[in-house]
């Protein structure tokens, strides 16, 4: 138990609350505003910017790295402190190019706001001019070291949170520079475009190319990413008039703790803008209906009354509400084109994953398909000295980290004789069904668990909502007379497994998302009896289960606009 006073008010804190909490965090949790630049959410504080200075019994302390002590008498704001903060900020402002009027993020910049907070209306020193190259090599990120204040947020977030270890600093003093992979251009580095560095950058150094100059007075919504079964918490920023999405950030207060990958942040943002643009182009020859969930039910009933022999194929791109509806109407005729195992429900959760000592990744490129899990594994391997074993993996981001790279499942037998124990197997559901018995035979005297990665977002929802789900080879079920009803927001994957070749001659009813990739596939398909467009998940409020069996909600971000979309 320790006692301290803040601005004259006394606090008693138990020992538990003292641990892992610095003075700045304590002040923030109790509603005191102390400005800070170099610290961000749960990154490790480094005490670099010195803006968070407070007075403790007359002495100046950097609150973000000061531990809580008994008898502290803290003053968070007085003319002296304001003066010190202003001086610290001036040093940063005058060191590089910080002229706000021609910066892409002016008016919503943390650094600029601190200038306003300290009432900085001029610099007391001449500014320093040292030119650094503007790096425009990356597809999504513009990197301008001339605006850097060397807070190291990006470097820390890239390692501590995202686990990619791409960004680092070189040189010393005023020549210090943030670089990728020891001096490569960002576009040529091992960057996987998660964009966390852009999100945490307090200045215009790391810029999102899709939101330059757009981000004035934007409104943010909390939602969850629906693009893979992890379901990371996200914040979607839309402009004031609700016409377009400005940017998509990760949510540090959600279960995923700020993890995010390129899929939602850049790929989906870009796709959605194309999707929106396309809604204004009415040159599509296909027979189309645009439905949202309210009238889907009546519509489905009207279809089923006219059909005698049919078969429904769906995947995990549908939300719970849609799955429930489909199950109510089509009952036992529903199939998925890939196997789903109920063992997914036993997956360890985010915290449990971090407790394992050894990770074995089989076949899956986590950076590409399950970015957040990849981040989790990489940062644990590198920062907490855990062991990684890869099987059939070519991504150097993982193979370079791993203790053992094997190409054959039988090589796992070697592990029986090692001292390693407590394994987590990371593999997708299809591999799991094939390999689980082999692994059981090969690893006899070790503890291990599986992290089964579902193929599509809402595979757990399919387990819950679809009765009698049959995973037998689909081609046996299909004969020429059957009408095939397909529900999927992403036809690309169905095409990859050649299902379309099998059903080429059948008459088809397809429910899908109207986007460029899908339209291209549809244009090459014969015998489409009816084509119905499902709502885009950014325009639709619904929920789904992620791979950790958590019920997550997607937000309709353009609530007023969804009617106009039809």
């Amino acid at each position, binding site marked *: 138990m320790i006692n301290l006073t803040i601005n004259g008010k006394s606090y008693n804190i138990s020992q538990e609350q003292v641990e892992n909490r610095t003075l700045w965090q304590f002040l923030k949790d109790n509603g005191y505003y102390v400005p800070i630049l170099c610290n961000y959410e749960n990154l490790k504080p480094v005490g670099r910017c010195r803006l968070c200075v407070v007075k403790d019994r007359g002495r100046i302390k950097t609150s973000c790295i000061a531990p809580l002590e008994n008898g502290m008498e803290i003053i968070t704001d007085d003319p002296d402190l304001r003066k010190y903060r202003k001086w610290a900020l001036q040093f940063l402002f005058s060191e590089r190019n910080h*002229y*706000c*009027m*021609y910066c892409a993020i*002016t*008016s919503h910049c943390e650094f*600029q706001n601190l*200038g*306003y907070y300290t*009432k900085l*209306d*001029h*610099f*007391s020193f*001449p*500014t320093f*001019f040292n*030119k650094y190259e503007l790096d425009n090599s990356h597809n999504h990120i513009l990197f301008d070291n001339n605006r850097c204040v060397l807070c190291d947020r990006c470097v820390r977030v890239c390692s501590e949170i995202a686990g990619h270890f791409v960004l680092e600093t070189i040189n010393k003093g005023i020549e210090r520079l943030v670089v990728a992979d020891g001096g490569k251009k960002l576009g040529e580095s091992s960057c996987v475009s998660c964009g966390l560095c852009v999100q945490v950058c307090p200045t215009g150094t790391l810029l999102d190319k899709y939101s330059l100059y757009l981000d004035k007075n934007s409104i943010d919504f909390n939602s969850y990413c629906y693009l893979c079964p992890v379901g990371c918490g996200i914040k979607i920023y839309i402009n004031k008039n609700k016409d377009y999405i400005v940017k998509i950030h990760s949510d540090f207060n959600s279960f995923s703790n700020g993890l995010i990958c390129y899929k939602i942040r850049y790929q989906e943002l870009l796709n959605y803008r194309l999707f929106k643009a396309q809604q204004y182009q009415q040159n599509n020859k296909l027979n189309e209906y645009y439905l949202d969930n309210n009238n889907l039910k009546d519509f489905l009933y009207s279809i089923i009354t006219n059909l005698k022999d049919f078969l429904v194929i769906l995947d995990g791109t549908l939300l719970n509400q849609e799955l429930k509806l489909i199950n109510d109407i089509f009952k036992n005729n529903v199939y998925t084109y890939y196997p789903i195992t109920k063992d997914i429900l036993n997956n360890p959760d985010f915290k449990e994953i971090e407790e394992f000592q050894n990770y074995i990744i089989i076949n899956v490129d986590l950076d590409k398909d399950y970015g957040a899990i990849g981040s989790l594994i990489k940062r644990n391997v590198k920062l907490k000295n855990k062991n990684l074993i890869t099987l059939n993996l070519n991504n150097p981001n993982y193979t370079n980290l791993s203790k053992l790279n094997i190409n054959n499942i039988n090589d796992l037998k070697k592990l029986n004789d090692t001292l390693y124990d407590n394994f987590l197997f990371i593999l997708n559901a299809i591999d799991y069904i094939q390999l689980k018995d082999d692994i059981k035979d090969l690893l006899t005297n070790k503890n291990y668990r599986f992290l089964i990665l579902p193929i599509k977002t809402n595979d757990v929802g399919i387990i819950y909502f679809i009765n009698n789900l049959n995973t037998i080879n689909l081609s046996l079920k299909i004969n020429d007379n059957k009408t095939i009803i397909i529900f999927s927001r992403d036809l690309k994957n169905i095409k990859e497994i050649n299902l379309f070749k099998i059903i080429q001659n059948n008459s088809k009813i397809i429910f899908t998302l109207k986007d460029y990739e899908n339209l291209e596939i549809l244009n090459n398909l014969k015998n489409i009896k009816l084509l119905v467009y499902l709502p885009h998940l950014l325009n639709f409020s619904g929920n789904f289960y992620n791979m950790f069996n958590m019920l997550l909600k997607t937000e309709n971000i353009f609530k007023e606009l969804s009617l106009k979309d039809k």
Partner: protein
Amino acid sequence: MKNTKKEIKISTIWCEGCSGCHMSFLDMDERLIDLIKKGVVFSASPFTDLKIPEDDVDIGIIEGSVATDTQEEEVKMMREKCKIIIAIGDCAVFGGIPTMRNYYKIDELSKRVYHEAESNANKHYPNSKDISKLLPRVKAVNEVIKVDYYIPGCPPNADIIFYILNELIEGREPKLENEKLTYE
């Protein structure tokens, strides 16, 4: 009729800037008349187009950064002649856009502009004695003289210019904070 009000002289000069701040100054519109009613006399300013202010100016307004030797002299002259100096706009306050040339040496710069530029047919460096010399680096006004008040902004809003002038004329201390302080 005898004017009983005390005369307050305001002069402005324009150094290395785009004149946007003077535009903003004129954007005070009818409030300029309010100021005149309060006794303000605009001596060297856009109204009179005089270049040299009188010797007993009360408020001197400087737009633009200091980029040439002439501008340096002018700015020093303003300090001698004016009781209060206000630096107006991002160029005068911070250096602003003209400081972009500080990344290069003058030789490199003039070579590029007068010899290599695609639009320049004469390939001739202007060397008349009447043309002022470029300083090695562009400076904010407060690097040359003492400045009393700063109005950042590119350009600053006419409301803010009026606020500052009005407060000074009324004998109050102007404070730039909250929405009045902006760098854009």
